[in-house]
């Protein structure tokens, strides 16, 4: 075994209680780092997943119609104030062509057209205002996994079939197989059969959304064969902004990413991340100071031994390394213990709080790179903390130290 390693390990073993305490100290620090990181990242990933489970990553819609520029007569404009025009229901007439363009944009995984409009849903003499969503039952589940959210019946939309939310079903007393009348704002109406009841985990959507086939929606909303929007899924959700920009450029339409539509959420997540990093930073700072103080004490305690080593020919470089290695060992051992502790803690926490359906309320993210980073950080701070004690040890004057036993 190399000399420095041998002496380092012996010194650590000799320091029993001290060594044990600093191992535990580093382990607790690393455990907090792993636990807080796993929890925050897990929660954030879950929040984004939940948000995106009822929202498309990218929505492509026709550009807003703006009033024509004021005519200029000489240097004076005709009108000082321009009234914004009411937005007519503008639609995508050539959506098949647009969809082909969208599908060729790098990063796009799936896209599906949607026909949207307002309607009244009624059964007997009870009526509710609903958001009518005409979709392609084959392609749409790749945008929003509605087929996995069905609580009763099946996800099936052929002819005059409809899928409604749990809240609407409750309000109108609807069950699978029941008939439902939908009256659009265009004045058209038709009778639909409820094939399924969905639960998107959002009361408002469960009350307002009614899915019908695209064909039925086009008929009800008087839209011939056009679509209102094309919704798309991207591979990496954080690429949505870039992909949306690309789509807007290629199609000349407007494309909004979920990030733009949920800017508030993202700001909240970012500040949550920063506070998590702050906690981790200060915990590791405390750990660094802890390691440094233990090693400084150790240098004082071992000054005689260091003097003997130097008197018998050990160079200052080797003495320095002996203490740097001790710092690194403390970091590595502490981070291994801490990783285990943190993972156990996170798992315990995840198992403790569960949703009624058995999924954890606090999902944790325990990827391998989390432990890799924790180990790297702890080892680096171990080394860093050892620098001052090591220099101190290297400066010891052997003649002074060994004079008196």
């Amino acid at each position, binding site marked *: 075994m190399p*000399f420095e390693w041998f002496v380092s390990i*012996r*010194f650590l073993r*000799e320091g029993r209680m001290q060594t044990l305490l600093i191992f535990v100290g580093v382990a607790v620090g690393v455990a907090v780092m792993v636990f807080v990181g796993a929890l925050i990242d897990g929660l954030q990933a879950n929040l984004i997943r939940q948000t995106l489970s009822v929202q498309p990553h990218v929505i492509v819609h026709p550009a807003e119609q703006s009033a024509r520029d004021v005519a200029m007569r000489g240097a004076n404009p005709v009108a000082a104030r321009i009234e914004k025009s009411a937005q007519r229901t503008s639609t995508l007439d050539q959506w098949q062509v647009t969809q082909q363009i969208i599908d060729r944009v790098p990063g796009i995984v799936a896209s599906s057209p949607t026909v949207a409009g307002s309607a009244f849903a009624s059964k007997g003499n009870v009526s509710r205002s609903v958001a009518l969503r005409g979709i392609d039952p084959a392609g749409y589940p790749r945008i929003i996994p509605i087929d996995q959210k069905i609580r009763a019946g099946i996800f099936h939309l052929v002819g005059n079939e409809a899928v409604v939310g749990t809240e609407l079903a409750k309000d109108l007393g609807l069950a699978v197989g029941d008939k439902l009348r939908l009256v659009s704002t265009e004045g058209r109406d038709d009778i639909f059969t409820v094939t399924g009841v969905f639960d998107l985990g959002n009361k408002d959507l469960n009350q307002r959304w009614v899915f019908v086939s695209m064909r039925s929606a086009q008929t009800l909303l008087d839209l011939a064969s056009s679509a209102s929007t094309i919704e798309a899924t991207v591979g990496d959700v954080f690429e949505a902004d870039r992909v949306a920009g690309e789509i807007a450029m290629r199609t000349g339409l407007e494309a909004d990413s979920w990030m733009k539509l949920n800017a508030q959420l993202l700001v909240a997540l970012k500040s949550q991340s920063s506070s998590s990093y702050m906690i981790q930073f200060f915990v590791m700072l405390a750990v660094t100071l802890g390691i440094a103080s233990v090693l400084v004490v150790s240098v004082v305690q071992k000054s005689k031994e260091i*003097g003997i080593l130097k008197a*018998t*020919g050990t*160079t200052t470089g080797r003495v320095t390394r002996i203490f740097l290695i001790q710092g690194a060992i403390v970091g590595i051992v502490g981070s291994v213990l801490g990783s285990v502790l943190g993972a156990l803690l996170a798992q315990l926490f995840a198992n403790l709080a569960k949703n009624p359906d058995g999924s954890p309320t606090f999902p944790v993210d325990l990827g391998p790179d989390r432990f890799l980073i924790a180990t790297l950080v702890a080892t680096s701070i171990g080394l860093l903390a050892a620098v001052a004690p090591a220099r101190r040890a290297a400066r010891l004057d052997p003649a002074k130290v060994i004079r*008196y036993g």
Partner: protein
Amino acid sequence: MGETVLELDRVVKDYGNHVTTRVLHGVDLQVERGEVMAVIGPSGSGKSTLLNLMGLLDRPSSGRVLVRGIDTTPLGDDAIARLRGRSIGFVFQFHHLLPAFTALENVLLPIWSDRGTVGRAERQLARDLLERVGLASQADNKATDLSGGQQQRVAIARALVMQPDVLLADEPTGNLDTSTADSIFSLLRDFGRERGGALVVVTHDPRLAARCDRVVQIIDGRIVSDVRKTAASA
């Protein structure tokens, strides 16, 4: 005799920054191969300072220290440490073993520190030395589990492992009983005889000094007498 292994050339040593105290006043001393030398003198005469300078643990304020003809004045700290490890063995009054290490490991430390790693050959050398000092069966005991005399024997084995040119001993028998002291001194003296290295013993003990070939007396930082015996010590 003849070959000089260690030489002090007009060595002066001062202590203190503002008020300096001169501890050595230009000492000239040559230690020859195979020689067994005692340095005697009252407390505070500069014996220990002299030993530290001879052992390269300290640097002179002026003058030169030469080891095997090499002037150590221009050498850096690490070069000095290496030269010290290879040329000079120490036996201190308070043995100074590393308590967390076994007897064998203590003996190995200088060679280990010099080469970085040790193999079978070095371990065997260390075992042989421990056997030579009568501690073969204690090789794997912790230093703290040994008696005072045994610890001093381990320290001697450690001092010899690098096969130094000079063995420096500071009151090597200072806190040992008479019979143990005798056998320890015999071991030290045999080193000089058998291996052709020089032994320098700093001591208060006139009995110890009487067993040396050469007795250097130092008072107030000056050598006042330097007596060589001729074949009397045999």
